[in-house]
């Protein structure tokens, strides 16, 4: 039967020549940027070079980690990913108060770490528990979304705390705690960080086939198996996003107030 033949075909290899041809796609993006003077042509070029370099390094690292098969190398790689993600989330903020890196790191560790443990132990049943073939890609997906959520949430919280500073002080002046006074900025920051994930859950499979599923199908997996993994991934991302966002928002909120429930002035 035709469909079984398709499922049994081996994964098509991509040669360096194939990759070079793919560069043409980036050249299209560079061309459009240049044509309309968006100022992004150079960024696209640099980004493409970094993509090749970074993914090549990651690829060789993964080959090494898979070959050595030591739990501490896998855990070390996960922590390195966490540190880089935390720094990336903090770098995206306009204002970087002391402690934000720690707060973001804790948020991602809790949000992404707990989600990874839940998925790898309770759902996928990864064996051995540190199997890098599962942990690293899963954590990468969790962390990427958690990082975006944390950055969005922190940015929105900072913005709301500034635009609503008069309202917040009015709450404080009536005898509200800082937690009560900042309730609306916290709510709005969490909403902003979680809405993209809600939207994804609503349209997945209708608007596009997500990356995990696409990769598995291309690699030869049965689509009906691939969709199960994708469902797990979508739920996993919802959890990571929610947990990372709430921890970063609640931690970051505290930095806006003194111990005496006073709103810190913007310059201090």
């Amino acid at each position: 039967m035709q469909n079984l033949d398709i499922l049994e075909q081996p994964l098509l290899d991509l040669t360096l020549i194939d990759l070079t041809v793919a560069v043409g796609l980036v050249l299209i993006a560079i061309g459009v940027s240049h044509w309309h003077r968006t100022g992004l042509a150079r960024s696209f070029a640099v980004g493409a070079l970094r993509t090749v370099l970074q993914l090549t390094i990651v690829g060789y690292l993964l080959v090494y980690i898979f070959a050595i098969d030591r739990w501490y190398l896998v855990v070390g790689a996960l922590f390195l990913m966490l540190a880089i993600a935390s720094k990336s989330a903090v770098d995206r903020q306009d204002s970087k108060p002391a402690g934000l890196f720690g707060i973001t790191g804790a948020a991602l560790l809790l949000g992404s770490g707990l989600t990874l443990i839940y998925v790898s132990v309770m759902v996928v049943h990864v064996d051995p528990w540190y199997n890098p073939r599962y942990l690293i890609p899963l954590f990468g997906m969790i962390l990427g979304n958690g990082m975006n959520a944390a950055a969005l949430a922190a940015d929105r919280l900072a913005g709301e705390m500034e635009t609503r500073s008069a309202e917040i002080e009015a709450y404080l002046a009536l005898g509200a705690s800082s937690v009560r006074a900042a309730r609306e900025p916290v709510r709005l920051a969490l909403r902003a960080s979680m809405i993209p994930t809600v939207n994804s859950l609503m349209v997945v499979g209708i608007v596009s086939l997500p990356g995990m599923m696409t990769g598995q199908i291309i690699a030869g997996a049965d689509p009906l198996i691939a969709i199960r993994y994708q469902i797990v991934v979508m739920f996993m991302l919802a959890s990571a996003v929610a947990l990372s966002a709430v921890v970063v928002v609640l931690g970051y909120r505290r930095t806006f107030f003194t111990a005496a429930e006073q709103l810190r002035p913007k310059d201090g």
Partner: protein
Amino acid sequence: MELKVDTPSFELRGVGQERAGRTVLQDVDATIPRHLITVLVGPSGGGKTSLLRLLNRLDDPVRGDILYDGRPIVDYAVTELRRRVALVFQTPVMFPGTVSDNLAVAAELAGLQEGQFDQLAGQVMLLAELDPTLLERPGDELSVGQKQRVNLARALMTSPEVLLLDEPTSALDPETSHALMKTIATLSEVRRLTIVVATHRVSEAGDYAHHALVLRDGRVVESGDSERVLSGLPNPDPSSP
């Protein structure tokens, strides 16, 4: 600690304050008498708002001590202090929702039982001379004068002992200003509140104040009986050069 009859509401001793690296108050020694209206007069930037913020502990001074009812202000739990010492801002701030929703926030913070809200809301609307039918009006539909009165009513929901008012009439026309200040004067008598009003309109202050503090460049340059202090000012309005 039992309060002596003449214990001032507030005592400031050597108080200094800075904001954005600038000294806004220095060596402030002053008392705010109990159950009377004290007016803080002085030009804009003279330190009036900074001083009011210290009394409500929205800020803490960088130097000196502040006593409230004879005890260091830092000895009070800050949220409890702020319910007893209410601050109404120069620019009225409305919370989302209706006037009733605004009063409900204060009621929630004061720990009022559900059954107590309607009666107290009615009382404070009366005290602030607001039409009770405004209760269900969205806050953003009110005039500036009405918003200022709602802010006043909201502050009264916590049954404070002290009312701090920062330039309450600055955004109002003369007629509305006069009406609001008359309301505040009545409040002082009816509720025996200690009231502190910061204003740069000296001509208005004399009509209702008992006690006055003149602030200039962050220093108290004169204090005492309002009639004496305000009439002794070389210029009717310290805000003009």
